[in-house]
């Protein structure tokens, strides 16, 4: 089972930890030898928003275990601090998300079009790709009238096309059990099982149905879905258990980074 083809060594792999990090699962088996297993994937499989700085309890712990911040010298800001002050343990999630953000920015910068489902390298210049990379990691601007205050270039990748819808479907009934919503559409939703990167932005109109809606301010590219069959899909949705209810509305179909097909299994011994 544990052949070399599974032994994919990740640089700095020891920064794994024994805790569920969103969808990432790690564990260590201690028998006659030490074995470490890891399942790596993007913590957010739909969106591209760069992870902001995080601090907290882990910051002191990180200093305790010797991960001393390296110096950062800014020219104007008075509050730049080392991003590694996240902590090896409690804020490992932050490190994970920073790495996700950079990997996503590189994929978006390098690949053609909206960078989804493709392996084709874009034809733009290196300078333009550098520009896209930085655009991916910029903060939200606080204004649009003064060019100095416009941080992100919303007319350029990734902000000009990442959240584009690829279609719509029409939910006709919906239910919720154990915080999982199941949606039936008429006609068929059209999401093929050849891909596992589908997402959805629900926009239902009335009554309790609105509790199933997805806020685009929180999830601009929707939330991932699991295809059940041609007419049915599910998505995680926190709320009270709700029997199957007829609904009126529309759902925008989105595409993200991918689901279990992007699970990178690793094994160290």
């Amino acid at each position, binding site marked *: 089972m544990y052949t070399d083809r599974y032994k994919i060594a990740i640089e700095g792999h020891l920064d794994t930890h024994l805790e569920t990090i969103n969808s990432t699962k790690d564990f260590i088996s201690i028998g006659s030898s030490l074995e470490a297993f890891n399942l790596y994937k993007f913590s957010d499989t739909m969106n591209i928003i760069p992870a902001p700085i995080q601090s907290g309890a882990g910051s002191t712990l990180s200093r305790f275990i010797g991960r001393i911040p390296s110096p950062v010298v800014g020219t104007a800001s008075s509050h730049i601090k080392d991003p590694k002050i996240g902590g090896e343990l409690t804020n490992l999630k932050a490190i994970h998300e920073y790495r996700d*953000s*950079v990997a996503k920015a*590189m994929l978006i910068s390098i690949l053609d079009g909206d960078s989804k489902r493709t392996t084709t390298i874009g034809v733009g210049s290196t300078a333009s790709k550098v520009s896209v990379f930085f655009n991916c990691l910029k903060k939200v601007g606080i204004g649009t009238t003064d060019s100095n205050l416009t941080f992100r270039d919303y007319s350029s990748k990734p902000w000009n096309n990442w959240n584009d819808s690829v279609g719509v479907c029409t939910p006709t009934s919906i239910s919720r059990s154990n915080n999982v919503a199941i949606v039936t559409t008429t006609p068929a939703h059209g999401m093929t099982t050849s891909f596992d990167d589908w997402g959805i932005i629900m926009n239902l109109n009335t009554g309790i149905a609105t509790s199933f809606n997805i806020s685009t301010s929180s999830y601009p590219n929707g939330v991932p879905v699991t295809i059940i069959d041609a007419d049915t899909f599910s998505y995680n949705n926190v709320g009270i258990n709700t029997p199957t209810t007829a609904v009126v509305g529309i759902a925008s179909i989105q595409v993200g980074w991918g689901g279990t097909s992007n699970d990178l299994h690793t094994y160290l011994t």
Partner: protein
Amino acid sequence: MTFNWPDIPFSGTEVDAFVVEYKALAQAIIDEYEIDNDKVIIMDKIERYLEEPYRDINFLKELLEGGLLYASFIIKQRSGGTGPGTDFIIGNSPLLNSMSSEQRGAFMRMLGCVFTKDAMAAAFNSSGNLLNGTPRSGLPLALIDEVMNGSPGDPYGNSPNNNNQPPTSFLEDLWNTLIGADDSALSDWTNIGLIMQRIWFSMGNKAAGKIPDFMDNYFNGDGSQVTETSFTPQELADLKAGLQEAFDKGGTIRDPAGSGTQVPRIEQFTPTSQQQFDFDMQAGDTAHIVRTYGSSLELLLGTTIVIKDSSGNITSVHDDYDFIYGFEVDRSDGSSPGEPYTTKQDGAMYLPGWDNGPGLNHSQVNNEIGSGAVEGSAALENFGGAAGRIGRSFIVGGHEQGKGTPFPIKVRF
């Protein structure tokens, strides 16, 4: 700047091309940062516009290196065998027969890896973390709470601290204390309260950090005199500074002996001839009763005797480490505090005459020192009473069991 790229353990037309492009782009990105005199000078546009984690060139380099493998893996998964995006096979992971999330969780629980607070606390107490064979009640749960405080998944829902305030050193000090604590010296009276007490005081005064050692000596020692050789240079310096702190504060405090009146914090007195000899006093030296309540040495020394030279410098401190609610040294033979003794006696609170009564029983003493009377009230003035009350309850409990041997302290600076 040279990248340390990880090996990519898979290949193919698409992924090979992607890796080449990735590395070239990474170098171009790093070139956007200017290096001057070994310091990273961040370009204005980067500093102002980017989220903070991506402004440090060194950290960005690590992230770029760390991101290559997974980005390449995604390309490999997408490329399949016949073309990009056309044969996206779900489940095309290196480990096809991997367990589901639920199966993995069940397997981990079967292995004993149960990441709940109670289970982790049980694991903490299961092997090497016992104290004299006894679980350290409360300690692991308190540690877990502290570690989780403000972190993702905090069971109390505290949000991560994003206010750019400098982190406190509390957790760091806590861990350092745990790592550095000598459990053999902490004895069976130790609990989280006293560990916290040690941390609390040791943060500001290393000498006060000796409270657990002194209490262990009180319970398990033979009453031998403690001198300056029992202190490190730093502890001695902090001990002296703590005494000077009391002199600097001056003024009056509520009488820790329970009279209900105000008494001077510092009170010069004329020593007897025997005391002058025992205190090594020279011409011009002065002797002072120092009540350290409300200062950093409060729970270490309480009321003590300090000798100053003619220039006002503190030269020595003399004390008996005893308790009016435990055992006290009997100095009725005329011997001086801080000198070896021959007899110990019940503390004053248990003796007739205390508060003009017949003396208190242990329950009454516990009520007294826990309700703001005597030293408890002094402790509440500054340091809060919890740690002190916990420590005192051990002294009372020890007395009830006949445990406790006072010892003299004579420290010359």
